[in-house]
């Protein structure tokens, strides 16, 4: 479970987030939609504990950020349109680096397990600068899952992916959901990755404009609701 309570964030005179509260129970997959500048990525960074809110707090499981920031970060994995990977290092060295930062034991076995999951075992010892965009994103997924996090946060993860990459990421998300991981995905797309989403939040001007389940929701309905909420 991840929860943000009464979160506000201001950049200069602009209120990017205005007293937002979000709760995602364990095993739920939530997508956050919204126009540019709505505060989606800021919300994700705050929930990922890499940016501090001006007010409000983040709770993961039953732990608050105030008491155990290091422990909380161990429970989160982030997949972004940026890979967070070092081009000079090999795939193995990148995963080893992040695994060590998470203080993992039995790292070697876990690296092999996640690299197999994303289908990059043969490229394990290749330097990352030789990777295609799709391979980079697959390795980025492996990096985010190396420490087996409870909560997965995704920031525009489908950006720049080809059809193969999209299919693979959708498969990974389905797999994570079936393993009862808590997932929050910030996206612009009404299509990619939306099949497995349980709930949709529409963010507009730093506030939650709509929060509804996806059960029996047609793509046309979603677009209509989105345009209604964002237009107002």
């Amino acid at each position, binding site marked *: 479970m991840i929860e943000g309570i009464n979160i506000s964030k201001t950049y200069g005179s602009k209120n990017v987030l205005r007293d937002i509260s979000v709760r995602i129970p364990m095993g739920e997959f939530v997508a956050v939609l919204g126009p540019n500048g709505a505060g989606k990525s800021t919300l994700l960074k705050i929930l990922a504990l890499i*940016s*501090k809110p001006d007010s409000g707090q983040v709770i993961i499981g039953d732990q608050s950020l105030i008491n155990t*920031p290091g422990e909380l970060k161990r429970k989160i994995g982030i997949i972004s349109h*940026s*890979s*967070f990977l070092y081009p000079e*290092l090999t795939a193995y060295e990148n995963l080893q*680096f992040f695994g*060590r*930062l998470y203080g993992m034991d039995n790292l070697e076995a876990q690296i092999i397990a996640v690299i197999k999951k994303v289908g990059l075992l043969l490229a394990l010892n290749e330097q990352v600068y030789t990777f295609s965009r799709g391979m980079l994103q697959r390795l980025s997924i492996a990096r985010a899952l190396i420490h087996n996090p409870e909560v997965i946060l995704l920031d525009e993860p489908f950006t720049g992916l080809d059809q193969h990459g999209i299919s693979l990421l959708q498969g990974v998300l389905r797999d994570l959901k079936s393993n009862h991981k808590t997932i929050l995905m910030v996206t612009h797309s009404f299509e990619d990755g939306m099949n497995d989403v349980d709930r949709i939040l529409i963010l507009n001007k730093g506030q939650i404009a709509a929060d509804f389940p996806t059960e029996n929701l047609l793509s046309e309905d979603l677009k209509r609701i989105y345009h209604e909420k964002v237009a107002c």
Partner: protein
Amino acid sequence: MGRELALITTIFKKDLVSEFRAKESVVTMVTFSVLILVLFSMAFEPSRRTVEEILPGLIWMSLIFSGILGLNRTYARERFNDCLIGILSTPIAPYQIYLGKAASNLVQLLFVEIITFPLYFIFYDLNLKGSLGILIIIMLIGSVGFILVGTFLAALTSNLRANEALLPVILFPLLMPVLLAAIEATSAVFTGLSLDQYLPWIKLILVYDLIFLVMPLLLFDYLMEVD
């Protein structure tokens, strides 16, 4: 303590391996340092006495300028692919990132010193009158002071426009105490003065090192905040 040290070492090793593979900083630093040395030796034909007077300043200035080239790369590498955000999403504390990077920068600078320092003796036909051991200690603690403050300020300027030009501008005023003390102490060793005569300079460098070891530990959290 062991776990904290392991995280610092992880950053340190990653930076060194990246640099070893990319060869972006060290090669530039060594080339720049050697070029200064050669150009000065061609531009001037100083007497032995003049060499003893100006060489300590020349050595330190060339090291500082070449070191700045490396410092500018420290966080540039992290900006690529948003790697710094990746690091900050893990349980590592910002001060551990700072110490890991400072250690890596120090090793790179010492590597440059090991290559270029003997060349000064060859090009300027210099005979060291004081102790080589003490000279090495002065070079080491002076380099530590420079790297500690440089790594801290490089983080401060890394997200700013024209950061490569800005870093020297804000770094040099803060470096004045350690630079002055290091030049004076180095000069004293060159001319063979007794340790008592330049011990205050060594103490000043050590105090400076201590201040700039502790201060970034207190402030680095603020520098690493992500908007």
